[in-house]
């Protein structure tokens, strides 16, 4: 059971980075400025690299000679364990960067704690990833502040993005049996303890960005448990998994 909880936890970590990495990579060649194009590709690249490590470890636990690619390319929607927020479509650049910021602020915090995990592999992966997450957070935080503060239009778009995404942020901190088992084993931190820290830093940034945090703390859920994803994930997988599905068993 403990191993199963660890497996689920690793899927959550790896699916978050896989799905967000995929979304970010959709910006390739289409960003508002060339420097952003480079930074977005770099972010996507980091996230895919982290996916290889998390899902690689998960596949080892699974045994049966499975690989990270089997997990990424041959599971269907109900087996994915990513947060709902990350599978949502990019919409505009503001929405993309707001989603990135809300996640980065959580991801960076979480990875920092995971670097001290009782599981040495988890600690090792987190220690490597946290440096990348720090850069992602710097960049997305600065972008949210700049565009929230910028012009009337950029402010309006960032507020719209925040209003749309806020109800999806709460899922990051909804603990279930898997999270409890991870915390009890000292593998991962208590999510509730993480939330206060996240919220104070996010509220400070959003204040700098002159944005108003919605009052409602309703949270959509169902992504990290796999109980109910959004309709968007199936379309993403149809694209991501096309070659592996159309030519089963081929080596690429």
């Amino acid at each position, binding site marked *: 059971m403990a191993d199963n909880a660890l497996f689920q936890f690793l899927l959550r970590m790896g699916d978050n980075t896989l799905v967000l990495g995929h979304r970010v990579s959709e910006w390739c060649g289409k960003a508002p400025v060339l420097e952003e194009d480079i930074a977005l*590709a770099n972010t996507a690249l980091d996230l895919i*690299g982290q996916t290889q490590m998390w899902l690689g470890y998960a596949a080892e636990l699974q045994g049966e000679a499975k690989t990270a690619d089997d997990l990424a390319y041959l599971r269907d929607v109900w087996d994915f364990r990513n947060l709902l927020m990350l599978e949502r479509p990019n919409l505009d650049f503001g929405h993309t960067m707001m989603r990135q910021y809300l996640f980065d602020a959580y991801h960076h915090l979480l990875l920092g704690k995971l670097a001290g995990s009782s599981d040495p592999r988890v600690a090792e992966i987190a220690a490597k990833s946290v440096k990348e997450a720090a850069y992602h957070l710097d960049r997305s935080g600065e972008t949210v502040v700049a565009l929230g503060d*910028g012009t009337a*239009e*950029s402010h309006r778009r960032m507020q719209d993005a925040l209003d749309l995404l806020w109800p999806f942020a709460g899922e990051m901190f909804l603990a279930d049996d898997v999270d409890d088992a991870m915390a009890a084993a000292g593998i991962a931190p208590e999510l509730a303890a993480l939330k206060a820290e996240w919220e104070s830093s996010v509220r400070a940034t959003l204040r700098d960005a002159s944005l108003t945090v919605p009052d409602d703390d309703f949270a959509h859920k169902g992504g990290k448990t796999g109980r109910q994803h959004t309709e968007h994930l199936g379309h993403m997988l149809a694209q991501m998994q096309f*070659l592996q599905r159309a030519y089963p068993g081929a080596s690429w």
Partner: protein
Amino acid sequence: MYAQMIKSEATQDDPALLEAFQARIDDNQKIEPKDWMPEGYRKTLIRQIGQHAHSEIVGQLPEGNWITRAPTLERKAILLAKVQDEAGHGLYLYCAAETLGVSRDELFEMLHSGRMKYSSIFNYPTLTWADMGAVGWLVDGAAIMNQVPLQRTSYGPYARAMVRICKEESFHQRQGYDIMMKMCKGTDAQKKMAQDALNRLWYPSLMMFGPSDKDSVHSEQSMAWKIKMNTNDELRQKFVDQTVPQAEYLGLSVPDENLKWNEEKGGYDFSEPDWSEFYDVLKGNGPCNTERLNTRKQAWADGAWVREGMLAHAAKKRIAKVAAQ
């Protein structure tokens, strides 16, 4: 080889200055941004470097088309890294062009209005995963042919940009060939994809070097100025000679009935591409011209509020800083 059909500008400068300038070039000295240069040299370089830069960023699109469908996590990561490099190459080149007195925004405007071109090759579609292999192998291979000699080009900032770019391009070509090897050792369907990619991209790759020397009207002045280092036909021949054995190693056939080793010249005889197709593509009638350009224009228009927002924020910060002092 991302610059084709670069029109070299006539120059009407003082003959004594021109002579001294030519002497510096002949002496293999590098021309730097603050040095005197003929107006024609400056304009020709802006056109060439600009076209090269535009090719890098438009060139992201046919490969970006497969990033979201890359078949493994490793292939996805490699392709992302490659496309990121290309955006970086675009950045170096726009910066090199800026040293000649033109802004990046002006260059974009010229691309969007059709006054500046990008390489014809990027107006062809990428239809299967094998195209990611063939683009790396053939398109980056052709680019390297041209760019390696351009490391010695007379304009300092351009030559230095080329040194950095060439290092990365050889990795791009290797990853392309690696995809081709995997496909050619794979299933029947994969081999078929690989052959199909070569069939479609062979002639467009040959076109990358520009028209035959006898029809290439702008070469002479550019070669004297060492902006162009080899003729189109020289480079095309070199490319064919290098690529045919690679195709043989893969077990693929080059789609040219006239392809034959010519002992006497020590190179292959091969068929010319269909030049009327080339001119059609240049005129905007290639299979993807409209889509590629519209994608870039749309990205630029959609990003306007972001650029304006960033600038407005930076201006506010500057004012706040001054007020605080």
